Structure formats: structure tokens, C-alpha cells
């Protein structure tokens, strides 16, 4: 997988007076888990939509390797956005661009503990389950970048933690470059290799911090909390963002 470079000079909505995003530069190393942390409404979703190719009205460039192309995207939206007339399995099948042996989906369903629910329609799923289906759908694309837009925001803490652990496990089995948006610092520390802090509008990157906690320690709430406290102490600029 190739490294991806994102440069957005300016993104201004037609109705707005000032830009939403200005001079944002972001480079993604392959198979790196990056958390974008910033205040609500600062333009994180706009950024993801630009990367996903859903919003093409901006000044800037996205480079995959050295080429100007749109990367292949897996997108976990804030709402799971499952098609209500398709079962869990059919929703995932939608993401496959060509027919694949059933084991491909079976493996993903198993990893997200959804094997039992594969024939169920989305309206019967709990919030946590539908998030997990959305995650599988994004992985099934085998994307260059996985975009995740606060996927756990409406989940209660234990469910969020459960889904987070499943996500990390799946990601370790199938490494992908991930761009994960959140405004929850604890969640970000638990997930990320690298944290990118974003300012309020116009959005730009303020600071980048590598999370030194080893992968096998990410279940350790104490280690995560300790690093969070340390961050808040040493980087006062972060405090204002949260």
C-alpha cells in the first residue's frame, strides 16, 4: 500500500464567509492508524468527505504515492448507513466489486462477532451491531484509506469499548491505513499510532503526537489514562480543543 499525501489549501462553503479548512497538510504512512482530534464542528467530516471524493469543491490535491488519483476508500460514517432492505450479509456484499468466495465475508463476520446476525435486517440490529456491520463493509472494500467519522459517538461506554477492541483486532489482522475522527482523547489514545490535533475553523493541524503505548498494552486502561494525563499536562494547546 502506498503512502498518501493530503494538501488542502482552501475549502470554503459557498454560503460561508471564511474557509472551513485552510492550509491543511497531512501525510499518511501506509498501515498507520491516525486519529484526528478536534472540536465538534471544526470541519473534520468535511475533510473526510473531500478525501472520499464526495466533495470535490476545494482547492488542493490528494496524492496516492506520486499520482493524483482518488484513493480507494472504505468509509464508516457517523451513522452506519446500512441499506434497510438488505440483510447484514447483503449489505457487506454490496461492497465487493466482484463476486468472492463466501469465506471472505464469513471471516469478516466472524472477526466482528456477527456470524449469528448475518441474515438479519438492519432495523433489528442494536446500535453497536450496526456499527460493526459498517466497519466490516468498509474493510471489505480493501481500501487504500479507511475513513472513520466518530463511529462510536452514540454508543454507551462499554459497547464503544467492545467495538473498539474488535476493530483493533481486525485492523491488526488486516492492516490498513486508517484515518479516525474523534473528539474523545481517551478513545484516540487507545486506538492511534499517531494523533493529529486540529484547530477550530478554519481547520488546520496544530500538533502531531506519536502514541508510544505498545499495541499489546492498548487494553490497559491505566496506561491509556496515564498517557492522556501526560498529554494534557505537556500540551496545554490541546486542552482548548476538547
Amino acid at each position, binding site marked *: 500500500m502506498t503512502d498518501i499525501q493530503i494538501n488542502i489549501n482552501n475549502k470554503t462553503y459557498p454560503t460561508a464567509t471564511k474557509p472551513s479548512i485552510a492550509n491543511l497538510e497531512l501525510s499518511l504512512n501506509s498501515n498507520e492508524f491516525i486519529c484526528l482530534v478536534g472540536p465538534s464542528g471544526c470541519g473534520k467530516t468535511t475533510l473526510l468527505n473531500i478525501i472520499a471524493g464526495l466533495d470535490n469543491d476545494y482547492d488542493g490535491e490528494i496524492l496516492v504515492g506520486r499520482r493524483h488519483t482518488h484513493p480507494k476508500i472504505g468509509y464508516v460514517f457517523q*451513522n452506519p448507513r446500512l*441499506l434497510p432492505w438488505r440483510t447484514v450479509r447483503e449489505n457487506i456484499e*454490496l461492497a465487493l466489486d466482484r463476486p468472492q468466495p463466501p469465506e471472505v465475508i464469513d471471516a469478516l463476520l466472524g472477526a466482528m462477532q456477527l456470524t449469528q446476525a448475518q441474515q438479519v435486517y438492519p432495523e433489528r440490529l442494536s446500535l453497536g451491531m450496526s456499527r460493526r456491520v459498517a466497519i466490516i463493509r468498509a474493510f471489505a472494500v480493501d481500501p487504500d484509506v479507511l475513513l472513520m467519522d466518530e463511529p462510536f459517538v452514540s454508543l454507551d461506554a462499554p459497547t464503544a469499548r467492545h467495538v473498539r477492541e474488535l476493530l483493533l483486532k481486525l485492523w491488526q489482522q488486516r492492516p490498513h491505513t486508517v484515518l479516525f475522527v474523534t473528539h474523545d482523547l481517551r478513545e484516540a489514545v487507545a486506538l492511534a499510532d499517531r494523533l493529529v490535533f486540529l484547530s477550530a475553523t478554519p481547520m488546520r493541524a496544530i500538533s502531531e503526537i506519536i502514541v508510544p503505548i505498545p499495541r499489546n498494552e492498548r487494553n490497559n486502561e491505566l496506561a491509556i489514562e496515564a498517557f492522556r494525563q501526560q498529554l494534557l499536562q505537556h500540551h496545554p494547546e490541546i486542552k482548548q480543543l476538547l
Partner: protein
Amino acid sequence: MYKQLIKFLNITGLTWFVPLAKIAAGENPSLQIRQLWLVMGVPMLAFMVFLGLWSFSASKVNTSLGAIPGPVAVWHEAAGLLDDHFAERAKEAEYYQRQQARNEQKHAEDPAAEIKVRPYNGQATYLDKIFTSLYTVFAGFVIATLIAVPLGLLCGMSPVFNTAINPLVQIFKPVSPLAWLPIVTLVVSAVYVTTSDSWFEKSFLTSAITVTLCSLWPTLINTAVGVSSIDKDLINVGKVLRLGWSTQIKKIVLPSALPYIFTGMRLSLGVGWMVLIAAEMLAQNPGLGKFVWDEFQNGSSNSLGRIMVAVFTIGLIGFALDRIMQSLQNLFSFGRAL
């Protein structure tokens, strides 16, 4: 099993039987009997009152064909029409039997003799006419759907196309079938030349096309609304997954608009059935419309009763068609309420 039965009754619109099923399953009987009274007893009572009023007032009005028939007279006419049907069918069977016997005899006398089987030329019975009407309305409705759904899709997806076609829709939508009919009749006569082995009669084609012209609009409009009101988030899912446009339509747009399309089709079929009777009267398509017209022209003492039978038949079939469409609509809504 019991839950499935309740679900089936609800989907098919046979909600009257839900309390019965629940009583049978032993659910709180007094509550269910109250429900039963509400869903079955009250409408029945209202119907009884209607019959009473009808019976009382009918005898007060005298027409050139005698008094307006009451419920009992109409019931007798209905039974008579049904008897006629079976009598006619018996005559037909007899005719073929006789013919076969004759042909066998002929064959026995002279094996080289030419054997002809002549079709029975009896009168169309009331049931035959009902069938003709259903067949005609169905043909018109299918053509209307085949035109309206693709057009509606285009309207829903392209604002430009929608703007282009909208004035035409608004102008043609309120036109009465009686205004279309002369044009359709002339066009069909000019374009379609019938021979002895033609598939359709002209009268059938004229009626069906008139039904099409009048019933196409609700489906078109509803499809367009259904398509244009699709959740943009779901469209974005398709975009992110890089589905081709045909896949996008097949897998996201159509299923999402399906409940609207079915609502439109249900309205269309209702309009079509209403229009059909008028069209058949004027186009002389041998269905229920022609039956009513013929009875009106005929002017015998039981004509009024027969027309009343036709009125009830038309109403009941319209009701049944609506229920069938409603069931289909429920089936394809995936539990989404419209």
C-alpha cells in the same frame, strides 16, 4: 406459527381476523371480543343500517323501468346472473359432447371423412364479462406501469428532465377518460387493422390504452417523488463504494423508492379501474362497462337490478384490487411506514 399468522393477516390487510386468531390462541378473550366487535361488528351494523335505508327508500322511487330494486331484488338478480352463467356453461359442454358424438359416428361410418370441430358461439356470461374487464384493466395498468416507472425514475434523478416534463404531466393528469377516448379510438382505428386472426379486438385496445393514459400519472409522480427523496447518505454510500450507475439504480435507488412506487401503482390501479367502466361503455369492450350500458339501453324490468349488481361487483373488485396492492406495498416496504 401464531405470530406468523398474525403478521400474514396484517400484511394482507385481513385485519378483521386478527382478534379471532388471538382468541383461538387464548389471548385475553374479553379484550379480543371487544376488538372483534370494533373491527367486525361495527362495520356490519353500519352495513345493515345501509341495507335498511336502501330497502325503505328504494320502493318510494318509481322510474320508467319500475320501482328501484331493493336489496332482495338485487340479490335475486345476482343469483340469476350466476345461474345464467352455469346454464350457459352446461349448454357449452353439451354442445361439445354432441359434436364429438357426431364426429365419432361420422368417423366410424367413413374413416376418410373430414372431421371439423366448430367452436361454441354462445353468449358471454356475467362472469366472462368480469373476466374481460379484469383482463383489460390489467393490460392498461401494466402498460402504464412500464411507461411511468422509467419516466418517474428519470424525473426523480434529473431535475432538468423533471422540469421539462412537469408541465405536460400537470396538463394531462386531470383529463377525463371520456375526452381521451375519441382520440384513442380514431388512432387505434387508423393504426391497428384487425383481421380474423388478430390478437386483440379494437375495442379492447381502445379501452386498455384509455386506462393507460389516465392511470399512468400517480405512478409517475410517486416514483419521481420516491427517487428524489432518497436519503442522500445512502447515495453517498454508493458513491464511496464506487458502484456503477446501473448498479446504483438497481441496488440503491429502486429499492429505496419501491414503497413510493407501490403507493403510486396502487393509486393508478384504482384510477384505472374507475376509468375502465366508462371506457368500456363507449368503446363497447365486452366487459362490465358494456354490460351496464346494454342493460340501460335494454330497459327490461330487471335491468335496474342488474345494473345494481354491476355496481356492487365493480365496487367489490375495486376494493379487492386495492387490498392486493396494499398487501404488495406492505410486503415491499420492509417495515418502513410511509
